[in-house]
Each structure stands twice: as C-alpha cells, then as structure tokens.
C-alpha cells in the first residue's frame, strides 16, 4: 500500500510540472485561486474578462498538446492514459490558472460527439472545443422536466431534411457565452415517454434562440432560460437515431456525473481556523467539546472523500476500472459545504449577518450550497443511482411507462 508514482508516472509528472512552471504561477497556498486581470476601463464585465483569460490559457495548453489529454490526437487530444489525465489534473490544480468555461463542452458534449457524430463533424468541432475557441452548453432540463428528464416537451418536427424546434429549456449553464449546444427534444408525442426523444447539436446563434439569464439566490447569474421559436436544425446535426434520444442522453449524464466533483467553498480548513480564532463563552470555540465533535465529523467526511478519490486513482494506476465509490462525492461534499457554512455563521454569532471579508465566504457558501445539492443530479436522484446502479436494487414501479407521452400528466398543478 503506497502513494508512489510508477517510474512512467513520475516521468510524466515531471514533464507536466516543468511545462506548467514555465507557463503559469504556482499557488502559494492550496486555496489560492486565479483572479482575472483588473477589469478594463471599457466596461468589460468580470465574467468576460475571466472568459478571455480562460480562452487564452486553454489555447496555450492546446498548442503545447496539454488540452483534453485523453482525447485522440486527431481531435485535439494527446491519446493520454486515464492516469496521465489524473496527473495533469493534480498538477494543474497546484497552479493559479483560469478555468470554468469548457467543462460542459469537453466533459459532456465532446464524448457524445465522439460516439455519435460523423468523422467530418468530429474533425470540425472537437479540436476547437479542445482549444477553447468554441464553447458548448447542454440544453436538457425544462420547466416541467428536471430530475424526470425524459419528461421534456421541447418539440422537434422534421420537414424534408430540416428540423424545426419549439419550446423552452432551463438551468442551462453558460448558454449566454456558448457557441454551440447539445439538445434533447421530443419528436414523437404519441410514443411512450422514453421512446419519442431525439438528440441534436445546434448553433446557439441560430435565429429563434433566445437566452435569458436567471438570477440565482447568490445574486449571480450562471444559469439561463433558453427559448426556441421555429429554430431550424439540419438533420445532419442529429446525434443518434430518431427516437433514440434517451439512449444518447444517458451517455451525456454518465459523463456529467464524472465531471461534477467536489463542491467548492468553505471546507474543514475554514471552519477549523475559524473555531481556533472565534471567541465562545469566554474561551476559543475550539476548546468547546460540542464544537470539537462537529469539527471531527467534518474532518472525517473530508478525509473520507479524499481517500475515496485516492482509491479510484489507484485503480487507474493499476490499470483497472475505478469502482462506483466516487458516486458519493457530490452528495457528501455539497451537504458538508452547506452545514459548515451554516455552522461558521453560527460561531460568528450576530456578527455573521454583516457582509465583510471574514463572513463573505461563509455567506456565499451557504447561499451557493442549495444549487450544488440540485445541479447535476439532486441528492435524491444520486441516492437512487447508488441504490439502483451500484447496489442493484430495483427501479421504482413507474406509472408513466408504456403510456403515450401525450396521455401522461406532467408539470406543476400549483
């Protein structure tokens, strides 16, 4: 039992490190993050400045052969092994580099294109995706279909070799800066729910696509509503067979679960430091037994996730397939985030209400946590997945199976 690299891994890690050291600044503390250059005086928003920096960094990596490492070279990758990809991720995270815009494209759209697009399309779309030149979004959820994704109603009608799309998507991260999107639609309303879906990719600049940002409880607006009014998509941009959209969607969702990692925000370190500094009944909070018990629980969760990840990486290093253990990551980290944020504010007492340098991260995490518990599979959906796909328990008996979709009650009755 060891944490040591093999000779090949160590060599690769050195190579990665030397390129990163030449091209980026190393973090001084683990929690250092990349901050975009000061907003320019030309009214540029923080996001577009961050986007510009992220695109520049991604292009730099691409040119040097460090983008989408595990993809085939023909599509802009490096033909790297899964372990090499992990090593790259571990080392890049030690540097202050921008990111956060390409994950959906590279993590979800890319793998679907690789499976279902034509060779010509793959050569056209994958390299710019890897390079960060073109950004992709995922148009799945709708107002009436979130966890129950197969309940979507956005309509696709074929006329000749052109599809016409009408409907509405929601919770689309990054739609406002995306160039392309993957979309699942309903092409047959009289077929049973899972049989009438068809999957496409489309140009987000197509006429009839309207993107409206959703202001979240954090005050930010990373998600959007996207409206489709008579949007045309050529049949050549269909991915998978007509009516096979559910199968294609599952490929995407599988990758979504791999792409969603730890929740970012306050973690054990922040609450530990706070408890050491914070006054509590005339002593430091950390000297209180009740506080120590809570800290211990969170440390155990954080450590459990860390070494769960290590067990997975170890499996990759040994050339075997990682087990399903990582399916617990998002549930545990999102709930831990929420509880630590809440407890931190509790420890700061009434002072926690004011927004200042110390409270901001706790306040932000408390407001952000609910979204993390929902996005990319709610806690409840993830628990179903653990029970059904990991432990082999049976699916729910469904009242909507084998019933024509247009006869199923949907949406909210409120």
């Amino acid at each position, binding site marked *: *039992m*060891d*944490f*040591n*690299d*093999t000779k090949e*891994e160590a060599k690769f890690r050195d190579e990665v490190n030397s390129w990163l050291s030449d091209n980026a600044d190393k973090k001084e503390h*683990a929690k250092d993050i990349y901050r975009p250059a000061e907003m320019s005086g030309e009214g540029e928003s923080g996001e577009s400045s961050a986007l510009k920096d992220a695109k520049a960094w991604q292009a730099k990596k691409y040119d040097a052969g460090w983008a989408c490492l595990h993809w085939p070279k023909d599509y802009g990758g490096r033909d790297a092994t899964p372990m090499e990809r992990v090593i790259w991720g571990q080392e890049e995270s030690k540097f202050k580099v921008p990111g956060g815009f390409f994950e959906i494209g590279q993590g979800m759209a890319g793998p679907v294109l690789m499976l279902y697009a034509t060779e010509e399309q793959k050569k056209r779309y994958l390299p710019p995706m890897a390079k960060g030149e073109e950004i992709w979004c995922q148009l799945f959820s709708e107002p009436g279909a979130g966890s129950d994704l197969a309940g979507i109603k956005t309509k696709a009608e074929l006329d000749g070799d052109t599809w016409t799309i009408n409907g509405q998507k929601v919770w689309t991260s990054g739609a406002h800066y995306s160039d392309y999107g993957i979309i699942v639609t309903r092409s047959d309303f009289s077929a049973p729910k899972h049989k009438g879906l068809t999957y496409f990719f489309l140009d987000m600049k197509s006429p009839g696509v309207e993107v409206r940002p959703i202001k979240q409880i954090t005050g930010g607006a990373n998600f959007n509503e996207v409206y489709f009014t008579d949007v045309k998509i050529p049949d050549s941009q269909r991915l998978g067979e007509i009516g096979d959209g559910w199968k294609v969607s599952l490929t995407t969702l599988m990758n979504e679960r791999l792409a969603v990692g730890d929740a970012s925000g306050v*973690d*054990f*370190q922040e609450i*530990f430091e706070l408890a*050491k500094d914070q006054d509590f009944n005339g002593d430091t909070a*950390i000297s209180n*037994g009740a506080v*120590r*018990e809570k*800290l*211990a*629980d969170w*440390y*155990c*969760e*954080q*450590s*459990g*996730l*860390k*070494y*769960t990840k*290590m*067990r997975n*990486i*170890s*499996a990759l*290093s*040994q050339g075997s397939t990682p087990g399903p*253990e990582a399916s*617990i990551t998002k*549930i*545990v980290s999102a709930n831990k985030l929420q509880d630590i944020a809440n407890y931190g504010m509790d420890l700061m007492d009434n002072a926690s209400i004011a927004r200042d340098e110390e409270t901001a991260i706790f306040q932000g995490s408390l407001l952000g946590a609910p979204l993390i518990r929902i996005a990319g599979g709610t806690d*409840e959906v*993830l*628990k*179903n997945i*653990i*029970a*059904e796909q*990991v*432990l*082999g*328990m*049976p*699916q*729910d*008996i469904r009242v909507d199976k084998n019933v024509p979709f247009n006869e199923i009650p949907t949406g909210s009755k409120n």
Partner: protein
Amino acid sequence: MNFNFSEDQLLMKEEVKKLLDKENSVKRNRNILEGEEKFDKELWNQLVQMGLTATTIPEEYGGIGMGFLELCVIAEELGRGIAPVPFSSSVYLATTAILNSSNEDIKKEFLPKLASGEIIGTFAHSEKTTFPSESGISVVSKSGKITGKKVAVPDGDIANFALVSATSGKNKIGLYLVDLSADGVEIDSLETFDPSRSHADITFKNTPAQELSADAWEDIEKLLDQSAVLFAFEQVGGAEAAMNQAKDYAMGRYAFGRAIASFQAIKHKVADMYISLQLARSNCYYGAWALSNDAPELPTAAATARVSATKAFYECSKENIQTHGGMGATWEFDCHLFYRRARLLSSNIGSQGIWKDKLITSLEKSNSPT
C-alpha cells in the same frame, strides 16, 4: 501508486472469509450469546491453525512475520462474521503491545505462545466505567506488585495474562504484564450488552507484575492508535455485512404488491448506509497505510478511521433493523447480533467522544490538517 491491499493480502482476506462462512461464524456468535461458553474455542482453534494469531509476530519469535496490512484484512473479515473470539484483545492489543516493547525477555517468553495460540492476552485499561485519561489511573504499581481494579476488561475471564496500566510513582503511568492465574487476582465475569464477547472486572491485590515500561503513557496512546485502525476495519466489515443484509431483505420482502427495495424511502436508507460505509472504508485504508508505515500521521489517520467506522457500523446496524421491520427486532433474526456488536466495538478502546477529541487534538498539533 497502489492505495490498496496487495493480491496476496486480498487472497488471505478471501481465505479468512471462506473459513468464517464455512464455520457459520454468525451462528456461532448466537450460540455463545445464548450459551454458557465465554468464547468459541473451536473457531478460535481454527483461526490459530490458520496462523492468524501469528500474523504480525516475527519468525524469530515463532510467528510468520507478516505485517499490519494482513491484520487489517483479517480484522475486516472477523467483523463481517461478528466472530465470538478474543482476537482483538489477544492480537490487536496484547501482541502489539509486546511487539512494541523493548523488553526482550517478555518477547521471548510470550510471543511464541501468543503465536501458537497457547495463551491469550488482553489489555486492562478502563477504570470506574470510563476510559481513562492519564490522570484517571488509580491502579498502583509498587515494588513489582500491582493493586487496584480494572473494569469491563475485554476477555478478562478468558485471557491468561493482561497488560495493565498502573501508576508507577512520580505521576508516571507504567504498563505491566500480569499472569491472571497469579495470587491476588480476582476475576468477576460480567453480564454484558453483547454476550458474544466476554468481559470481566479484575481486582488486583499485591499481584506480582512484570514491567514492560514504567513510563508508558505515550506507548499506551500509540497502542490505542494502532489498535484503533484494526478495530475500525472490524467495524467496517460488520457495517458492510449489515448493509448487505438490509439490501437483501428489502429485495426479497414484498409489501404493497412490490419489493420494498423499489421504494425510495428504503433505497435512500440503503444509499445512506453505503455512503457512510465508503467514507469509513476509505479512511480505514489511510489508517492502514499510516499503521503499516508507522507514519507520523498515525494519530490523525487512526482517529479518523475509528470515528468514521464507529459511525458507519452504528448507522448500518440500526437501519438494518429498521429495514427489516418488526422481524428485525426479534431475537430470532440476526440483526440484533450486529447491532450489539456495533455498540460493543464502539465502547472497546474508547468511545466516539474520546476519539473525536483525540482527532481534533492531533490536528491542532499537526497544524496543517489538510
């Protein structure tokens, strides 16, 4: 990187599992629980014959010279089988304490007999029903003899000898080896929460004792850290068995016209068990790494493994009963055997509050917890 057990270790684990399955270890637990015997001698002898008591003892002392990693996989299987044997007392604790010691005479005398199963040892530490801090030891050692009372000593009425913590003067705590058949030893077997594992109060009156160390508090803390990893593996084994029982029962039990395993209320319950179990298992692996490398991280890693494994076994064993419904709360079903064992293992070597406090203390010392 290989953050896993080796193929040989996993093979050994499988062999232990096969033996315990073949011998129906869970049924044997029930026999001990319901009967007059203090432990299952037949099963114990089989474990001895397999060489398991000799695992960590070097060949020069009659052992087979393997390491703590092998002991971790054995512990997990003993936990899965809730085996009614004094393995934790004799192997995790007594054997490890003697291996840690520099007293060559004691090593030569006791290790070969521990390896061969000829004798059984235990660690007598608790007093006045609480797990003692350094200032809480009242048993006294003086001129080679000890006097005082230890309570709820695991296997106290089975073991041939005990390692006893006692004050050695000048506010030091020493560690002493006492032959439990010696004069001045009074052993009172206890009725316990989990009768599948025997416990006894032991009173010493001027009982002759051999000194392992007169200044042993740090040694004792280390022994507890080492054994905490092994206890944690045992707890993970038990937790996994309980989770699987819940799942299997739910899949075969029909209500409202369907397997209850198809209800989300049950699925989410079992998923929660799985989450708790995976966190514990991963922490245990880190504990195993720290234990086998005698790493400076051992105090943190051991406490983390112990706290999360205690939590996992409690959660899995109680929700296993809940999943079974009324039948789970009957004497006839095995659920309570796991529930009892979970509680027992939580108390042996110090309860949750103590280990959580140890964990935070070690993080305060190390200054860089993550």
